[in-house]
C-alpha cells in the first residue's frame, strides 16, 4: 500500500517546525515515529500535503525531573521510556504501560508525544496521563502553553492542539510518597491495542483510609476518561475489598462506552469494572 503523494521536509528546531506548519496552510502534518500516521497514510485515511519530520529535534528528547513532576520529551520512544532510569525510579507505572504498547519494533519507533497527540481512543498512554494529572507542553505561534490532559483530549483522534503548535513534552505528576500505581490492560487479541486499559494510583493512611486515588481508563469509549465517581466514592473511606468493589462498579459511569464487532458496550463496561477492581486491589491491597 502506497500513500498519496506528499512533500517531505525536516525541521531542525521547534520554531522551524511551527514555521513549516504555518507555511503549509493547513495541509501540513508533523511526523514523529510515524507509527500511527504512516499506517493511516498507507490506507489513504490521512492524506497530508506536506509531512514535517520533527524526529531530529533533540530538545524534544529525553526525560527529566522538574520539581515534583517527571517531564518526558515528546520524541522519547516507548522503548526508551520503558528502560529510563528516572522513569523506573519515580514513575514505574509509566514504564509498565510503555512495555505493553504494541511490540518491540513499534516501541522502537513510536513516541510518547505522538501517542498523546494522536488521541487514539484505544492507545495506552492517555489512561496513564489521566491518572497522573499529566500536562501537555505545547509551543505555538504565540509561545509556550501548558494544557492539562483533560482539556487536551477531546474525543476520538480529536485534541485541542492548535493547527500550528507542536507538543514538546508531557509532564506527569509523581504521585505522593507511599502511593502505589499500576496499569492493567485487556489486549485486543488481534491488534494488541487496549480494549480496556486501567491506570490506577492509590494510597492510604496508617489507619487504612484512602487518601489518594486516581483512575484513568482508555479503550472503553470514544475518549479516555477519569473515573471521577469511583474516585469520589473511595476517597476517605477504608480501603476494604467491599469499598473497592463498590468503587469499581462505578468505573464505567464517567465514560461513553463504545461498541464494535469485538466488544459490545455492555462488555466494555464490565471490563472497566473488572480491571478497575483488579487495579485497585493491587494499589490499595
Amino acid at each position, binding site marked *: *500500500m*502506497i*500513500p*498519496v*503523494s*506528499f*512533500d*517531505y521536509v525536516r525541521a531542525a528546531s521547534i520554531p522551524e517546525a511551527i514555521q513549516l506548519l504555518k507555511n503549509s496552510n493547513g495541509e501540513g502534518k508533523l*511526523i514523529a515515529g*510515524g*507509527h500511527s500516521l*504512516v*499506517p493511516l*497514510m*498507507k490506507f489513504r485515511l490521512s492524506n497530508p500535503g506536506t*509531512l514535517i*519530520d520533527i*524526529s531530529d529535534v533533540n530538545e524534544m528528547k529525553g526525560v527529566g525531573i522538574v520539581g515534583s513532576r517527571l517531564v518526558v520529551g515528546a520524541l522519547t520512544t516507548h*522503548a526508551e521510556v520503558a528502560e529510563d532510569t528516572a522513569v523506573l525510579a519515580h514513575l514505574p507505572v509509566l514504564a509498565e504501560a510503555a512495555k505493553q504498547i*504494541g*511490540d*518491540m*519494533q*513499534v516501541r*522502537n*519507533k513510536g513516541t510518547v508525544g505522538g501517542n498523546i497527540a494522536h488521541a487514539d481512543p484505544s492507545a495506552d498512554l492517555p489512561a496513564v496521563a489521566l491518572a497522573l494529572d499529566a500536562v501537555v507542553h505545547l509551543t505555538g505561534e504565540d509561545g509556550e502553553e501548558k494544557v492539562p490532559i483533560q482539556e487536551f483530549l477531546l474525543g476520538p483522534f480529536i485534541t485541542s492542539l492548535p493547527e500550528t503548535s507542536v507538543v514538546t513534552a508531557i509532564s506527569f505528576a509523581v504521585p505522593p510518597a507511599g502511593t502505589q500505581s499500576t496499569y492493567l490492560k485487556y489486549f485486543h487479541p488481534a491488534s*494488541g491495542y487496549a480494549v480496556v486499559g486501567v491506570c490506577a494510583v492509590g494510597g492510604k493512611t496508617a489507619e487504612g483510609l484512602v487518601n489518594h486515588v486516581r483512575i484513568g481508563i482508555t479503550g472503553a469509549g470514544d475518549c479516555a476518561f477519569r473515573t471521577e465517581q469511583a474516585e469520589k466514592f473511595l476517597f476517605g473511606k477504608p480501603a476494604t475489598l467491599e469499598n473497592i468493589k463498590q468503587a469499581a462498579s462505578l468505573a464505567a459511569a464517567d465514560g461513553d462506552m463504545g461498541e464494535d464487532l469485538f466488544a459490545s458496550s455492555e462488555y466494555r463496561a464490565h471490563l472497566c469494572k473488572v480491571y478497575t477492581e483488579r487495579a485497585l486491589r493491587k494499589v490499595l491491597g
Partner: protein
Amino acid sequence: MTKKWNVEVKVNGRVKRAEVEPRLLLVHLLRDEFNLTGTHIGCDTSQCGACTVMMDGKAVKSCTVLAVQADGAEIQTVEGLGTVDQLHPIQAGFWEKHGLQCGFCTPGIMMAVNGLLQDNLNPSEAEIRDALDGVICRCTGYQFIVKAVQQAAETIRNSQQQSQVVPAEGGSV
C-alpha cells in the same frame, strides 16, 4: 508534482544513495532500489514483522517507515548478518534448531532476534517470546524459534567469553 528527495543510507556497511518520492517505503527502497530482497513483505500493515530490519541499531518494521525517514540512518538487513560460508550465530541457531520451515518469516524474525540479543545476551524464554511479539510465523509454532534464539545467545556469549580470555594484542586481560 511532489519534490523528490535524495536519500543516503548506510546499508550493511556500504553507503547507498537513491532519489526517491517521499511516499516510498523503506522496505521498497531496500528491495526495489537496492535489490536487497532478503527483507520480505508479508502483511504490509505493520503486523507480521517479515519486513523487520535494524535502523540505527534498533529493530523496526520497514513497511512502516518511509525511506525519507531513514535518510542518514544506518540500516542492517538480513544480508548483513552472515554469509553462506560463515553463518551468523543467529542464522546458525535457526539452521541447527530447525527454526524455520518455509522460511518466509525468517529474515524478519532473525532481525528482531538481532534487536533482542544486542541488548540482552541472556534472555529468558519469556523475554524471547516478548521480543517475538512483533513477528508472525505461520509454520513453526515458535517452539523451535525459541530454541534457535537460545542457541544463538549461547554461541555469542561463549565467543565473547573466549575473546575476553585471549588478551588483545599489546593489551592486558
